[in-house]
């Protein structure tokens, strides 16, 4: 009995043991790396200055009468200046100077660079800046709902990258080596080797089923060796 179980444990693991090694390595990476660090929270400086409310001459009532369908209206700041950000009734995002009520143009390259430098916590220079405004340029790490964005890459071995919305000037997402690596780890963990999104794939199902069987056989062997070390008939 034990002999047969040992044989199956060995042969099953000969086929799927590598995935156990992958699960262990990727799992260890994911639990040891602090998720907030992975998400690049240490790359971006939190805005410490409060909004200069006394400079807000253009009121929300003004905004409402000028842009009747406006929704999700927020007073925030862009480079320390108070601005309104909202979605107009034609679903486009708008940015308005809260001091004057003037409609602000899309964030240009210079502004994007300024925002990036202003919010980045380290002093690295900027390695590249690029406008991404259509689906065909979309990198896999960016969701299409964020378009159009400025991609600003800093000159650092870990390639920290900010994605700055051209509409709002917000850093909509960021990436760095350890996050990108984390995504790969996740992909290998759930065994989704095409797009890395789908936990419900048959390959994982198959290997996990065989893996459970192999682990149960292993548990039997351990039980035998630890708790029944003196029985001799366990052939």
């Amino acid at each position, binding site marked *: 009995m034990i002999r047969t179980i040992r044989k199956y444990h060995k042969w099953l693991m000969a086929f799927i043991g590598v995935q156990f090694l992958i699960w262990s390595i990727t*799992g260890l990476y994911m639990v040891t790396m602090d998720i907030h660090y992975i998400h690049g929270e240490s790359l971006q400086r939190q805005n410490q200055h409060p*909004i200069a*409310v*006394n400079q*807000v001459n253009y009121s929300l009532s003004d905004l409402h009468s000028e842009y009747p369908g406006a929704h999700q209206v927020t007073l925030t700041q862009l480079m320390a200046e108070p601005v309104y950000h909202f979605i107009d009734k034609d679903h486009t995002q708008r940015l308005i100077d809260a001091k004057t009520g003037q409609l602000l143009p899309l964030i240009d390259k210079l502004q994007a660079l300024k925002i990036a430098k202003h919010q980045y916590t380290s002093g690295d220079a900027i390695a590249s800046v690029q406008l991404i405004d259509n689906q065909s340029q979309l990198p896999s790490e960016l969701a299409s709902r964020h378009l159009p964005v400025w991609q600003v890459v800093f000159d650092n071995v870990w390639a920290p990258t900010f994605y700055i919305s051209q509409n709002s000037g917000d850093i909509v997402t960021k990436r760095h080596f350890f996050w990108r690596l984390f995504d790969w780890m996740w992909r290998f963990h759930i065994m989704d080797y095409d797009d890395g999104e789908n936990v*419900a794939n048959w390959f994982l199902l198959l290997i*996990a089923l065989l893996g459970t069987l192999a682990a149960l056989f292993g548990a039997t062997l351990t039980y035998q060796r630890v708790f029944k070390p*003196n029985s001799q008939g366990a052939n």
Partner: protein
Amino acid sequence: MFKLNKSLHKWLSLLVGLQLIIWLATGLYFNLMDHKKGSGNANLRPVAHTAGNLNAPLLPLKSLEFAPAKQVKLLWVLGHPYYQITHQSGIHSYQAKQVTLLDAYTGQKATINETLARTIALKSFKGSVNIISANLLQPPIAELPKHENPLWQVKLSDTENTNVYIDSNSGRVIAHINDDRRLRDLMFTLHFMDYFGTGGFNHWLIILFAIATLLLSMTGVTWLIERFKAGQLSFAFKSNKQRIKVIELAQQQTHELELKTGISLFDGLAAAGIALPSNCGGGGTCGLCKVRCNENTQMTDADKANLSNSKLEQGYRLACQHNTAEVTEIEVRSRTFNKPKNKP
């Protein structure tokens, strides 16, 4: 050296075995589950908050008194406008926030009160239900351990036992937690070993187990490599036969056997009906399966670890650590001795 590998494999498996099986079983659950149901959102529907028109002018922010703000949002709650003034917040919405709500028509301080919470809860639910209770909970909140802000919990009377959680700073529905969602959350707790309710997976217990599991996998792979080198993981389909003369000491009988090659002597003899004593079932750790071969037969690490020098010199070896092809004549003392099946 290899003995250490084996005993590490054993003790590590004892340490993490149960959790390893939990990881596999919950992993299978995630693979097979209905994600829509598991999210708890099966009965969730959006709540319309925005009103088309203003009933009165919005008070200018300049005219209001409030603490320094990093963001002011025009927040609509069930058709009424408020200024949601955020003084302090983290990157994620679940992190602790300092927020003031002011009525945008009157400038009065406002809160998401019980009446609002109850109405929002009912509106967020597809189908008609009754409210069992509504309570403002302070963090930590058992069903949403990550959340660091006070939340309204509105218990509904549906068969799924839905609890609607509403952010007390904004009136937004944070989650519908029903029985499907509870099952999923339990699976996450088990998979993340979050037995102390941290709400995440970056904690010392799982890190410790992850290290132990990595070592378990590594010792396992090492063991497989060792078996492969010893010729006991041969993928060859056709195997040859090895003629072996077996002298059975207990019964004082001699047999000529033809055993398959590419397997261990232990397995080969078992296939022929000769069961050697064993506890480990061929793992090379119990030392019970010894047989006497030619003294010149190569010694493996497991032989040296389990047999005394004098036994080794007399030619004793562990049958599970040698291939059938290595021997031509052996002496065995078997536990059971069925009639050998393949007498020539």
